[in-house]
């Protein structure tokens, strides 16, 4: 069939029932998209000598033809709701049949902090190791008692700042141990639960994913209690990114099981979008201007309860991302003790971590952000999010680099589960 722009698409139909079923495979010309976008090109299966592997063409959905014509030229296809249901079922099956043990790398590393450690040393440790959080170990009770994350650092900075002192001396932070901070936190947020939540290595991946979503945390420790012992072994920190990686690996070579993945994200109800594009009634996306102060950025992060915000310049062109985890960069050179902390702008804070002389690990090394456009397929988004360290994708408009939306790991899981 010929599209309006002259491209010719071929659609093949199934005939024999005993072959694997594949999603529709239009024959694409080169689409005219300018960004560096990977295309989910589905090749037409070649014909064998006697047998033709078949493809399933969903041709009876007439009302979707128009959408397909528009989307088809950008390399992604729209799927029917039955296929979406089948995809979700396959994903749920996969998550129920695999366990947290599969998330462990063959030779992995975990970092734990003693609860009696002063807060300052703790954040330096997090920064040295380049991790966003660590479980807390109490040697007197020989148990893990919680997690220390970047949000804690933000809360501490805000609290100490609000006490009137614009300079918090290093001694103050040095005296403060994590244990004392935990007690203060309990007083500050009495409604939140403060006991340790964890998963075991034999819990299913769907249980792990549900716990991560329910508690709204980034990482959960995987603990193993040997038989007849109350002393746990710390195995791993499970996160949504790890689960997504397992999922990707499993379904990467069987695209027929998850036809939903071929759908472009612009047509799905997923992610957080700016007010022009967002669904009516949902909360629009906040963006940070790069000359705003750091304290305003932190307040926005906490208020919107998100883990990162896009940073734009005066014209709204996308520049960078400021994430909660970037706060640990302030541990470098003990920047947080300088009196002008509140006046630091977001762009200056980002530059601290990106300085040339720091070659070590850290949340600010490597690729800080990944971008996509609205017509990219869900598979493209998921493959990017499965990369270690990537927790969100910024969706921008192809030509002007204006920020359109953000898709995070949590959004993807909410959509898939």
């Amino acid at each position, binding site marked *: 069939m010929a599209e309006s722009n002259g491209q010719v698409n071929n659609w093949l139909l199934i005939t024999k029932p005993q072959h694997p*079923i594949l999603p529709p495979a239009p024959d694409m010309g080169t689409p005219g998209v300018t960004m560096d976008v990977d295309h989910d090109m589905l090749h037409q299966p*070649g014909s064998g000598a006697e047998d033709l592997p078949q493809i399933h063409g969903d041709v009876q959905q007439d009302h979707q033809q128009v959408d397909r014509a528009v989307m088809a030229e950008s390399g992604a296809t729209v799927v029917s709701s039955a296929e979406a249901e089948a995809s979700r079922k396959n994903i749920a099956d996969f998550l129920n049949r695999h366990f947290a043990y599969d998330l462990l790398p*063959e*030779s992995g590393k975990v970092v734990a902090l003693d609860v009696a*450690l002063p807060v300052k040393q703790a954040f330096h*440790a997090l920064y040295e190791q380049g991790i966003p959080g660590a479980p807390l170990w109490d040697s007197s009770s020989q148990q893990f008692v919680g997690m220390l994350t970047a949000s804690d650092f933000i809360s501490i900075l805000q609290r100490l700042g609000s006490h009137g002192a614009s300079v918090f001396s290093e001694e103050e932070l040095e005296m403060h141990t994590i244990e004392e901070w935990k007690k203060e936190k309990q007083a500050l947020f009495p409604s939140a639960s403060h006991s340790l939540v964890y998963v075991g290595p034999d819990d299913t991946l769907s249980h792990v994913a549900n716990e991560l979503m329910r508690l709204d945390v980034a990482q959960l420790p995987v603990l193993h209690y040997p038989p007849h012992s109350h002393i746990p072994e710390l195995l791993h920190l499970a996160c949504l990114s790890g689960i997504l990686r397992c999922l990707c690996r*499993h379904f990467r070579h069987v695209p027929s099981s998850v036809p939903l993945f071929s759908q472009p994200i612009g047509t799905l109800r997923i992610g957080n979008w700016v007010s022009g594009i967002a669904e009516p009634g949902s909360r629009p996306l906040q963006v940070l201007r790069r000359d705003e102060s750091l304290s305003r950025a932190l307040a926005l992060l906490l208020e919107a309860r998100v883990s990162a915000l896009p940073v734009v310049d005066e014209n709204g062109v996308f520049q960078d991302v400021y994430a909660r985890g970037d706060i640990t960069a302030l541990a470098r050179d003990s920047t947080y003790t300088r009196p002008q902390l509140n006046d630091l702008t977001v762009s200056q804070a980002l530059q601290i971590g990106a300085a040339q002389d720091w070659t070590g690990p850290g949340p600010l090394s490597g690729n800080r952000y990944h971008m996509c456009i609205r017509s990219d397929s869900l598979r493209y988004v998921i493959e990017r999010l499965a990369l*270690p360290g990537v927790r969100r994708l910024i969706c921008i408009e192809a030509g002007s680099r204006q920020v359109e939306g953000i898709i995070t790991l949590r959004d993807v899981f909410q959509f898939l589960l």
Partner: protein
Amino acid sequence: MGNTNGREVGAGGGGQHSQSAVGGHGAVGGQRVGHPGYGVPPPGSHGHPQAQQMRDQGRLGHAPSTESMSQSPSESPGSAARSPLMFTPQVPMVPISKPNELSLGGYAQTQRASQQAYYETSLYGEPDKGVATMIVWSHGGGNVGVIGSWDNWQTRQPLQRSGRDFTLIKVLQPGVYQYKFWVDGVWRYAHDLPAVSDDTNNVNNVLDVQDYVPENLDSVAGFDPPRSPESSYNDPLPGPEDFAKEPPTVPPHLHLTLLNVPQQNEASASLPRPQHVILNHLYVEKEKTNRSVIVLGTTNRFRSKYVTTVLYKPLMM
């Protein structure tokens, strides 16, 4: 050292690639220094100059206990470095490495190159490297072919007949694939292999290609420790004169702790597989300044995987 085309001895077996290190003389050398069945990788065997450089760096300090085998010849072509292959169906096998692969890593040729090279050879399967996998059909037939999702069901490849089985070796990226057999004109699946059925009652076999080979733990359990020497545990506790002496030197293979592996850029990149000798030992970070924090590290095994734990503790004065 003569013929270094030796194979793994003792604790070798199907999965012990990491112990064979470079040139395959690990096992042979190990016997010389009295470690039966252990693949002690000889870091010094890359040539003295490099070992010197590393010692000067102060970070790794591979002690020269491997002097006795420092006259080892240059690495023999890669095929000798791997243990004999065990042909279990669908167990990923070691790729036959080419001669030039051994001396490179993917990493820059820094001064730590020889230790890097050691870690590289124990890691096979970098992200883009395929893993050789064998596909077997053992249910008779005259003409057997296979078609799979690795190329989106495009080509059907014939299997070679060997006796009553039909086999094919494919190099695949790590991942999960589905495939099906074509036997004398009929599409069939092997019911003794993992399979999955999709919504239309179509059953495909499933192949899960790992990018590492899980350790063959049975071969480790087969290690027979030598008898303990005759002595008693009733020795007196060390006194002050004992503490005044220098402690005995650490055996050199304990320096191969994973804690010294240079940090990767991504926080969750995984470490190379550790040597068994460093498991269950407690390490302390080398004291840089008079710090109030002590950093402890240890590597343990959990089922078939390894976990390196680092703990930051305050030093009580």
